[in-house]
C-alpha cells in the first residue's frame, strides 16, 4: 500500500510550520525522519496517520489490489505512549479485540518479543519508562500494520531493549511492513533505514 | 425592628389571601409584625407543640381538642367558619346534583364507581371527608377512590384532569374554578360546615413564646375590628368566611 501527500501545509495562526509539495511512503520502505526540536516531525507523522487534518492539502491511502483491509493499517506511535488503564496483556490484545479476534498465541509471541511476558498481569500504569515504550510497540506490532510511524521509540530504552526492538522491526520489515522512524540520535534502528528525511525550517529534504 | 410573632396556619387561609387581607387591616393600627408560616393543620399543630411558633389558626376540631387537652395550647377561640362543597365533572355522571344530602351524593359516586379524589393527607378537609364516608358504614373501597396525598389546589387540578369528584373548601374552589373543568355539584348541607379556631401556645410549656403579643393579636381577630375584616374579604365578589367569634 502507498501513502501519498500532496501540497500539504500545516500552520498555526499566521505561522507556517511546514509546507510539503509531494511525499510518498510505501510499505516495505524504511525511513529515518530527523530534524530539530519543534520542526514539526510529530505533527507530520500524525497527519500521515490520519489523526490530524493538515491546514491544507491532501493525504491519500492507495491500496494494492491483493491486500486485505488489515494490511492497510497505518499506525502512529506517540512519543510518550498512552497506555490503557488495564493490565499489560489487555493492552496488547486491544487492537485484536476491536476486530473481534483474540489470537492468544500471537499475543504470547509478541509479549515475549517485547520482553514483557513476566509482566503480563501488571497494571500498565505501573510500568517503568522503557517498559512503557516496549509495550506501546508490542501493541502496534501485534496488528501487522502496513505502515508504522514511530515517534522517537528509542528514547527510554536500554541497550538490551534496543536490540530487541531492532529484531522486531527487522522481522516486520522482511514481511513487508514499511516504517518511518523519527529519532534524534543515530543508533541500530536508524541504521536499518535506507532513506533519511530531514524536516527543518518548514520544509522536508532528502526525499527521493 | 418592631416586635414580631409567628403564626402557623393552614394553607386554606393563607393561599386564599385571607391572611394577607387581615394583616394589612391589622397593620393600620398596630406595629406588631405577624410572620405567617402556612402549612398543613397537622404540621401547624406540631410546630406549636414544639414551641416554634406563638399561635396557630386551624380547622380540625378533634385534633385541636387533643392539642389543648395535652396542655400544649391555651385560650382557644372560634374565629370564623366557611363550608365544604362537592365538585365534579361537568357531565356529572353520578348525578350527584340530584341528591339531597352530602351522604346521598357520596353514595351515588360510590355506586357508579366514579373517580373520587381524596386528599388522603390527614388535613382538616380529609378528616371531614372520612367522617362523612363513615355515615355510609365503612371507609370507601371502590376502585375509583384515589388518594392524592396532596393539598387542596393540587387535588382539584387532579380531579379536573382525571374527570373526578372531590370535596373542597369553598375558598380554594372560588380561587381556582376558572382554571378547572369542574362544576359545583353539591353544597349547603349543614354537615359541611368548617369552623376555624385560634389557639395560643402554652407559655407554661415554652417560656420563650411571646404569649402577650400573641394574645393581643388573637383578641383583635375575635373583636369587632377583626371580625369585620374577615367579613369583608371577597374573592370575585363572593364572601368566603363567615365571622363567628362567640
Amino acid at each position, binding site marked *: 500500500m502507498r501513502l501519498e501527500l500532496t501540497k500539504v501545509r500545516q500552520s498555526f495562526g499566521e505561522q507556517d510550520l511546514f509546507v510539503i509539495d509531494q511525499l510518498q511512503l510505501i510499505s516495505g520502505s524504511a525511513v529515518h525522519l530527523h530534524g530539530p526540536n519543534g520542526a514539526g516531525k510529530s505533527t507530520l507523522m500524525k497527519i500521515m496517520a490520519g*489523526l490530524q487534518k493538515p491546514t491544507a492539502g491532501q493525504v491519500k491511502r492507495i491500496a494494492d489490489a491483493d491486500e486485505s483491509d488489515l494490511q492497510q493499517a497505518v499506525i*502512529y506511535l*506517540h512519543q510518550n505512549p498512552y497506555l*490503557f488503564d488495564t493490565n499489560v496483556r489487555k493492552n496488547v490484545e486491544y487492537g485484536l479485540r476491536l476486530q473481534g479476534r483474540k489470537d492468544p498465541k500471537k499475543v504470547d509471541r509478541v509479549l515475549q518479543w517485547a520482553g514483557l511476558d513476566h509482566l503480563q498481569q501488571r*497494571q500498565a500504569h505501573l510500568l517503568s519508562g522503557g517498559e512503557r515504550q516496549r509495550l506501546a510497540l508490542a501493541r502496534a506490532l501485534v496488528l501487522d500494520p502496513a505502515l508504522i510511524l514511530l515517534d522517537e521509540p528509542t528514547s527510554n530504552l536500554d541497550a538490551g531493549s534496543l536490540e530487541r526492538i531492532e529484531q522486531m522491526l527487522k522481522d516486520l520489515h522482511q514481511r513487508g511492513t514499511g516504517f518511518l522512524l523519527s529519532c534524534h540520535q543515530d543508533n541500530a534502528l536508524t541504521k536499518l533505514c535506507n532513506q533519511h528525511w530531514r524536516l527543518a525550517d518548514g520544509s522536508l529534504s532528502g526525499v527521493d | 425592628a418592631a416586635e414580631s410573632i409567628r403564626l402557623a396556619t393552614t394553607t386554606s387561609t393563607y393561599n386564599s389571601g385571607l391572611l394577607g387581607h387581615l394583616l394589612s387591616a391589622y397593620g393600620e393600627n398596630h406595629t406588631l409584625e405577624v410572620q405567617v408560616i402556612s402549612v*398543613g393543620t*397537622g404540621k401547624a399543630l406540631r*410546630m406549636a407543640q414544639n414551641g416554634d411558633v406563638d399561635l396557630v389558626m386551624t380547622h380540625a376540631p378533634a385534633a385541636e381538642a387533643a392539642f389543648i387537652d395535652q396542655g400544649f395550647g391555651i385560650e382557644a377561640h372560634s374565629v370564623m367558619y366557611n363550608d365544604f362543597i362537592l365538585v365534579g365533572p361537568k357531565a356529572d355522571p353520578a348525578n350527584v346534583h340530584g341528591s339531597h344530602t352530602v351522604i346521598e351524593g357520596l353514595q351515588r359516586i360510590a355506586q357508579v364507581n366514579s373517580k373520587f379524589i381524596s386528599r388522603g*393527607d390527614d388535613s382538616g378537609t380529609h378528616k371531614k371527608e372520612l367522617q362523612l364516608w363513615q355515615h355510609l358504614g365503612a371507609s370507601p373501597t371502590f376502585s375509583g377512590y384515589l388518594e392524592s396525598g396532596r393539598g387542596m389546589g393540587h387535588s382539584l387540578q387532579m380531579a379536573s*384532569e382525571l374527570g373526578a369528584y372531590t370535596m373542597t373548601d369553598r375558598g380554594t374552589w372560588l380561587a381556582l374554578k376558572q382554571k378547572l373543568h369542574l362544576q359545583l355539584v353539591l353544597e349547603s348541607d349543614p354537615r359541611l360546615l368548617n369552623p376555624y379556631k385560634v389557639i395560643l401556645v402554652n407559655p407554661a410549656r415554652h417560656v420563650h413564646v411571646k404569649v402577650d403579643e400573641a394574645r393581643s393579636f388573637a383578641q383583635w381577630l375575635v373583636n369587632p375590628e377583626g371580625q369585620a375584616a374577615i367579613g369583608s374579604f371577597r374573592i370575585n365578589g363572593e364572601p368566603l368566611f363567615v365571622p363567628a367569634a362567640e
Partner: protein
Amino acid sequence: MNELWHTFSAAITQLASGDPMLWGIVGVSFSVSASALFIALLPALSVGFVLAYFRFPSRWALISLLNSLLAVPTVVVGLVLYMMLSRSGPLGDLNLLFTRPAMIIGQILLCFPLLVAMSLSAFQAADHRVLETAKTLGASPWQAFVTLLFEVRFALLAALVTAFGRIIAEVGSAMMVGGNILHHTRNITTAIALETGKGEFVQGVALGIVLLTLALVLNVSLGWMQSHSRVLRHGT
C-alpha cells in the same frame, strides 16, 4: 435531644416492623429512577462527548444552557411538563399525566443536563492521546468512544451516582406529574412530603433512612469495586 432521639428510634422500629405498603412505595421510586437513568444515559454521554471533542459555533452557549438547566427547580420542570401533558396541553391525548411514565419523563429531563455536564467534564479531563491511540490501533469512531468511556470510568461512575442521587431524591417533578396517588405513583419522596406535611416526622425520617440505606448498599458495592481495582503508582 430527646425528641430527636425519639423520632429516630421510632423510625427504626417502624421500619423493622416491615410494612408492605412501604416497600411498594420504595419499588415505585427505584423503578422510576432507574428507568429514567437508563434511558438518559447513552444520549447524555454522547452529547457530553460531542461537546468535549467537537468545536462548533454555538458550543459554549449550549454548555451554558445545559448548566443553567441544573438551577431550574424540579418543580418548575415538573410544571412545564405538566402543562405539556395536561388535557389542555399539546400532548394531552397521550393520557400520561399522573402515571409512572410521566414521572420517568420528568426525571429524564432532570438527570440529562447533569449527566451531560459531568460527563463533559470527565471527557475534558481525559488525556488527549486516548482517542488518537484508539483510532490508530484501528478503532471505529464508536469503538474509540467506548474506549474513552472505559478510560474515564471512575469519573463516569461518579456522574452516575450523582445523577441517581438527584432524581431519586427529587420531589418537585414526581409530585407535579405523578400526583402522589397511593398504590400508583406515590414514591418515597412524595410520601415523605405527605407525611411531614401531616406533622408525621417519624414516617418522614423512616423513609429517609430507607433511601439512605438503599443508596448505601449501591454505593458500597460500587465503592468496593472501585477501590479494589486500582493500585497506585507515582508518575514517572
